[in-house]
């Protein structure tokens, strides 16, 4: 499993790296000393606080000094009986899968479109990436405004005679989760696009040209030549998207607060509420640990799968 991680990110494509895998530096070639500054900083502000914070998962800590007791695995047991937590777990998984899949496809489509000689491509590249520059709270407010029942989106839809499509986007509990997912994709598709644009730059144009000479259509060339060569870019894009969507907090918290009801509750949102609304830091920490393990497992599976895909090709 560990080797999957380390090599999945390394491009195993056709690139001419003659000494890439064979050339082994003599022992001590790259001293571990170069690793030291990063490791010290990382240990100080991430590892140590995380490990000492993780201990609270086994306590009933309320965030104040007095009367903290060890409660064993009780907090973890509660997660699976807690209605809000179960709903959050389900939603987080739905968000992660759908955001990762759709955002990758949208980002790829935008990149393919902008990799051509469109006159507007420089402006569009900036425009599509621009939402990623804005803080999520601002994004959330903008979309709350646009999606309000009598708001701009529904007005446009009704104007086009599409009354049936005009919905209570954030207020309908069967729709709200999908609306949130849409907004998240809107905000981060540009990031995926940029990663794919980068990948596209590395594909030799001769490959596509010779395929075109052989009579392959645009779609065939894209599917059989371009997309397979984008596997490394896909790995980077999908890993980052998967991790951030599993941890999704800001957009949900600012747009729906987890509602209507519990329809858009995510693990990060209930983690926050348990700690800072209910004062149950211990339970909140247990949720955080479970979330970490879920993210870890999903990332490993994904990296492994993409790697196999890459090798099989």
């Amino acid at each position, binding site marked *: 499993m560990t080797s999957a991680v380390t090599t999945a990110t390394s491009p195993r494509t056709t690139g001419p790296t003659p000494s890439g895998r064979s050339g082994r530096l003599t022992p001590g070639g790259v001293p571990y000393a170069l690793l030291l500054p990063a490791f010290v900083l990382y240990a100080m502000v991430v590892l140590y606080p995380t490990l000492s914070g993780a201990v609270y998962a086994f306590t009933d800590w309320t*965030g104040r000094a*007095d009367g903290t007791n060890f409660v064993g695995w009780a907090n973890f047991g509660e997660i699976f009986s807690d209605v809000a937590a179960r709903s959050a777990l389900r939603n987080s998984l739905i968000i992660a899968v759908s955001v990762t899949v759709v955002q990758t496809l949208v980002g790829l489509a935008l990149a393919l479109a902008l990799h051509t000689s469109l006159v507007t491509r420089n402006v569009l590249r900036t425009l599509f990436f621009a939402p990623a520059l804005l803080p999520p709270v601002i994004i959330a407010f903008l979309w709350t405004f646009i999606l309000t*029942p009598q708001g701009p989106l529904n007005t446009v839809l009704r104007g086009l005679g599409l009354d049936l499509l005009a919905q209570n986007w954030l207020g309908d509990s069967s729709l709200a989760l999908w609306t949130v997912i849409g907004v998240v994709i809107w905000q981060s598709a540009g990031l995926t696009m940029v990663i794919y644009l980068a990948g596209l730059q590395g594909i030799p144009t001769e490959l596509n040209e010779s395929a075109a000479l052989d009579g392959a259509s645009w779609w065939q060339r894209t599917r059989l030549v371009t997309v397979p060569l984008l596997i490394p870019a896909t790995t980077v894009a999908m890993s980052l998207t998967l991790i951030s969507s599993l941890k999704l907090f800001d957009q949900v918290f600012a747009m729906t607060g*987890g509602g209507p009801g519990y329809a858009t509750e995510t693990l990060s949102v209930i983690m926050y509420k348990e700690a800072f609304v209910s004062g149950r830091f211990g339970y909140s920490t247990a949720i955080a640990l479970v979330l970490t393990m879920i993210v870890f497992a999903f990332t490993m599976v994904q990296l492994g799968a993409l790697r196999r895909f890459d090798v099989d090709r």
Partner: protein
Amino acid sequence: MSPITSQSRFTPSRRALLLGGAGFGALTLAACGGFVNDDDGGGSGDESGSGDGGGTVTAYLSTEQNTGIEPLVEPFTADSGVELDITSVAVPDMNQQLAVQLSSGTAADIFRVSPGYSSNVAAGVLGSGGDLLDLSDAAWAASIDDGTRALSDVDGKTFAFPVARNSLVMAYNLAVFDELGLEPPTTWTELLEVCQALTDSGRTAISHGLSGGAIYLQFYVYILAGTLLYGPNPDLDAQMRAGETSFTDEPGWTEVFTKYLELRDKGYFTDGALGVSPDQAMQDLATGAAGMTVLSNSGLPALYEYSETGAEAFSILAMPAGDDADATLMPTAPDFLAVNAAAANPDGARALLEFLAEPANVETYASALAVLPGLDVGAQVDNPALEPVLPLVDAGRTVSYANYLWPNGDVQQTMLQSGQQLYADEITIADLLTQMDAEYAKGTP
């Protein structure tokens, strides 16, 4: 396409890098004070001087409290020799910050707490946990009215100082009422009639926005419960605490939610309220698309901003819940400050509260925010906006927000979240009350 060839085409100009580096270096030198913690740096409580004369009092306030206290800062320092170091934060972020600060011993000398047991950092929760200084012996403690005292005291000890009181009011659009010839309703039946008239005119009767956490749902519950439940039975909280009754067993609670849903069922609330933001609801009232809305009076200034004519465009009333106009009570809530039990400068903090308790200063604070005075010290507040409801305040016809004496913040949280499901008809009133009872039974953390 090796990286070598691609990067060499786009090597950034070395000059640009150098320029950037130089500019940055200059900047760093110019402002190197920010890297280390000198005494006028951060807002943590353990570094302020104390003892010798005045020193500094660190204060951690809500944005609103900061506005109210602003005109009093200089007079206080002139009067006492104590400097004030104020940090102000929006309420949504406060509870998190304060919780972390209290757990780490970095909380300010004086900070905002929620009333009763309504959050993790409420007066009752922190007071019983030993985090707050006992202020019972302060002179102003005698001027706290009984309703407020229930929220500031634990076991006969006063832990919080009411800087002001807010109330839940119904604001209405004067132009719309004039146009339709409507009078402010004083009973539930009149309210329904006014709503019907507004609806018939093609408007939303009561603009209602529940998206983003449904904080406005609770206001209707507190208004209806105040008049229908706590008016006839002031001992309800004690009875619920003692387990003699509950949300489910007390028929008044069912009546409260039934009446709330009646407004929805008759089409008086904004269409699709669950997807409407509170801001949108206020704007609808300002533009006349809606006739009325319920809000805290601390939200009135924001409402006025939405209208070209400002405060002139609106008036307020106490929302009726029953058919005896004289039985209508208006929910009011104290806005509290409390002193850290581990304050670096407890004497300075006490001095600040004594200063804020002086009638003239109570008046200044309340006028700056257009709110009700927190202490009963005979302060005359000139506040035309609140005039329509002042008779109720003077007659003592006020009641606490119902949630303040619920034993933990989760009862309210459940009401807000499951309440959205109730609004969407996904659960019944009985379901909701059962859930609230379950959270209630968990007691104070």
